[in-house]
């Protein structure tokens, strides 16, 4: 089983620094996990990723199950060996991508029914099957199969059904996992569902806490960043209620401002394809906001992307390093008791020219940090996602 130890706490916000020790070594939290969908991070070798100070990455179960498939992975000695990654690894359940990438996915109590992209045959992904595939992949952290509905689904009954089903599926995942013999090396995380509904989330959190002794951590699912109004309220609610002695993982969050708000609310881990995907379009992440390197105005700029960045220049490497620096800086600030200042400095540099996203101001106020204190930077409604558009 994993070992989770809190190393420091922010005296103001709910942020904390912790060490999560898994079968492939320790990972210091809060951290951002780069996504290696197909067992590779865009053009990089595992040695390059490791050299950037990354100790935990994510593989997608849905993709690895299709290609190379569990047969090849088990011949290789599981996913770590297959891809040459010696640090920690997390796999998702495969359910989310199955539902979003298959044309005819339907959810039944038994599992997710979909059309095999290779044979066209109806195929069922059950909670047991998801765990079984994740056992074959061999990640250090594995995720329960959950019933995902888009967080903005207007159908309250469907959201409630999905939440209740996710709890039942968690029980099936626990039962399968605990009888597998893999519990010593692989750690099961539960996923809190319930859309943006306070009451549903609350019920889900309580039900999942009851299963705490069988899970190594809790994820907050069904949200994806600050563009959805109310995301921060749900994160706050979940993070407040989830047990102190388990890591909290906010799924699908990767914008710098979202990450820092989530950390302030008590989140320890997050993942997103955004930093690596955006690199392919020439967008470099910086503490002054994203920089579109393909814009003509940057063409004659011979300065490095960021003079303080220790990365070997390549946009993908740089963006992964940026996320790691952002979270590493948060860790130090939390432990030094300067996290509120860290937040204020970050937001002033990042959003000083365009104004603070209102939801960030509100979310941070709720944990005792007022971005507007002693500042004349304006507040803008909406997502506030900062972007340099292409010409």
């Amino acid at each position, binding site marked *: 089983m994993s070992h989770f130890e809190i*190393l420091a706490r922010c005296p103001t916000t709910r942020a904390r*620094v912790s*060490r999560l020790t898994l079968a492939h*070594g*320790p990972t*210091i939290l809060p951290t951002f996990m780069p996504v290696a969908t*197909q*067992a*590779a*991070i*865009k*053009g*990089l*070798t*595992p*040695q*390059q990723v*490791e*050299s*950037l*100070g990354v100790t935990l990455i994510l593989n997608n179960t849905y*993709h690895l199950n299709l*290609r*190379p498939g569990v047969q*090849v992975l088990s*011949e*290789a000695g599981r996913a770590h*060996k*297959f*891809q*040459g990654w*010696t640090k920690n690894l997390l796999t998702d359940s495969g359910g*989310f*991508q199955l539902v*979003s*990438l298959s044309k005819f996915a339907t959810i039944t109590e038994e599992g997710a029914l979909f059309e095999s992209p290779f044979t066209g045959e109806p195929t069922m992904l059950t909670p047991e099957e998801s765990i079984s595939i994740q056992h074959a992949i061999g990640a250090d952290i594995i995720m329960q199969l959950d019933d995902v509905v888009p967080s903005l689904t207007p159908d309250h009954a469907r959201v409630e059904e999905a939440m209740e089903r996710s709890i039942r599926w968690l029980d099936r995942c626990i039962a399968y996992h605990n009888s597998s013999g893999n519990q010593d090396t692989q750690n099961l995380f539960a996923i809190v569902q319930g859309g943006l509904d306070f009451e549903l989330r609350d019920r889900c959190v309580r039900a999942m806490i009851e299963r705490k002794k069988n899970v190594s951590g809790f994820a907050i699912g069904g949200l*994806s960043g600050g563009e959805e109004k109310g995301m921060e309220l749900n994160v706050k609610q979940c993070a407040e209620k989830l047990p102190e002695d388990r890591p909290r993982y906010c799924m*699908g969050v990767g914008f710098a401002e979202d990450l820092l708000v989530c950390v302030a609310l008590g989140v320890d881990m997050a993942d997103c*394809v955004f930093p690596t995907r955006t690199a392919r379009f020439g967008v470099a992440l910086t503490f002054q906001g994203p920089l579109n390197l393909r814009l003509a105005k940057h*063409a*004659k700029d*011979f300065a490095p992307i960021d003079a303080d960045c*220790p*990365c*070997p*220049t*390549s946009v*993908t*490497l740089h963006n992964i*390093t940026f996320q*790691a*620096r952002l*979270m*590493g*800086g948060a*860790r*130090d600030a939390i*432990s030094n008791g300067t996290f509120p200042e860290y937040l204020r400095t970050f937001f002033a540099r990042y959003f000083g020219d365009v104004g603070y996203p209102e939801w960030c101001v509100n979310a941070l106020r709720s944990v005792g940090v007022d971005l507007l204190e002693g500042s004349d930077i304006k507040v803008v409604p909406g997502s506030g996602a900062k972007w340099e558009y292409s010409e």
Partner: protein
Amino acid sequence: MSLSFSATSTSCFGARTGSLTLGRPSATLVLSTPGLIVATSRGVVPHLSRDQYKRTPAIRCLHVPFESFLEQSPPLPTLQPGSHPLHTFIGFDPRKHILALALRDPADSRETPANGTDHVSAATERGIKKVTTEQWRTYVRACTPDIVVALTDIPWTPPPFSQKRLTKSIERSAAWLAHLLAPGPQPLNVLVHMAGGISAPARRAFANSLMETLHGQEAGNVLPYRCLDDGVAGYIFDLIPLYCAINASTDATSSDPPEIAGLLKASLVSTSPAKLRVVNSATSPHEILRLIRDVGVDMFDSKWAQEAAHFGVAFDFIFPVQKSGSRRDIGHNLYRAQYAHDFSRFADSAPACLCASCAPVAPPSVIAHSEFDAHSPATSPPAPYTRAYVHHLLQTHEMSAHALLVMHNLTVLDAFFAGVRGVLQRGENFEEQVDTFAEEYDEGSAIIEEARMVWKNVEMARGKGRLARERMGQKEI
């Protein structure tokens, strides 16, 4: 910076070893020949990031086609400040890398409009740009490459070419060389492309025009050189225009096509054997061995090896050969389904390849992002990357596949040249080793052709996939 070359052999033709020395205030770089020149595109080694250059010692000397920088005016490398503008602009280390600058990409065989009396038609992504001899001189002076290739009038209109066109080509090429050699702030290290097409007499005539002692105004223009050849550090041969012309001539007449080695020799017979000889676009180890054996070529570009990596081929050949008793391909097309379950390293040949893919090294240190971050180095070195993993990466369009294969193929090719030098230096029977190599390895680049076809199909399927994904909107995470 000064460039000097010394060859072990003083005879005009035949295999030889040598060393190319570049002296700069900060470092002295020595390349052993025969050796390779790595191809770049838009200033980078395709598929590699800068930190991977360091892990690939085969990357020492690079060829930089300037034409891709012509999209901006003035071209950006010419605006780069500092003492090594070209190195700095494209991210190479002056203490480790020798950069050779040419206007055109020697591997580009597309038809381009005719050159003029004092300009060459260069290909950019935004169409054809005319580059005058004066512009070329300005660009070269601003970029300060270690080696520069003089402009040459190679016609890229469809062959065959008339006698008149060949004469014009020779005259222009000589005049353009003279223009580049005109006195400047520092002497340049100039390679001249040997003009004359597939006509041996025309090639001899061009070589002779380099050796001719100049008089009067012509001599004054290139002071202190007595003849153009005095200002030249070496000779360069682009094979693609020669092959194009040979193909066109055999279509038209049924007479015996001229042989590449014979054409190269026609250019070299009257020149000084002490100068560097470079060939672009030789495309197999067999062809390279023949040009070393028959002509005494010193350096070859490695674009074909990098392209093979792009198409999914992992090289697996070695010189001198260890006989296996059966005929082999020079590499493995890792797209093939047979590799899905093959967990062996890329190459079977011994000694094992030492590239960053076959002998990966855990990073000795990692970036720490907070006080809490402690690097825990792995207890055992990372395992070699496997054929099965790269097969998977190719199938899933992951670019890491190409990075791993480029580092490998360049390293195999570099080891091949080291093997050639070893045989020559030890005084072994080189001709016999070349024959044995040809018996062991299939020369037909069938394996590369096959990979190219598969790659095309995958790219097309991928295009369809992308469309499908776009139709699905932003659902994909």
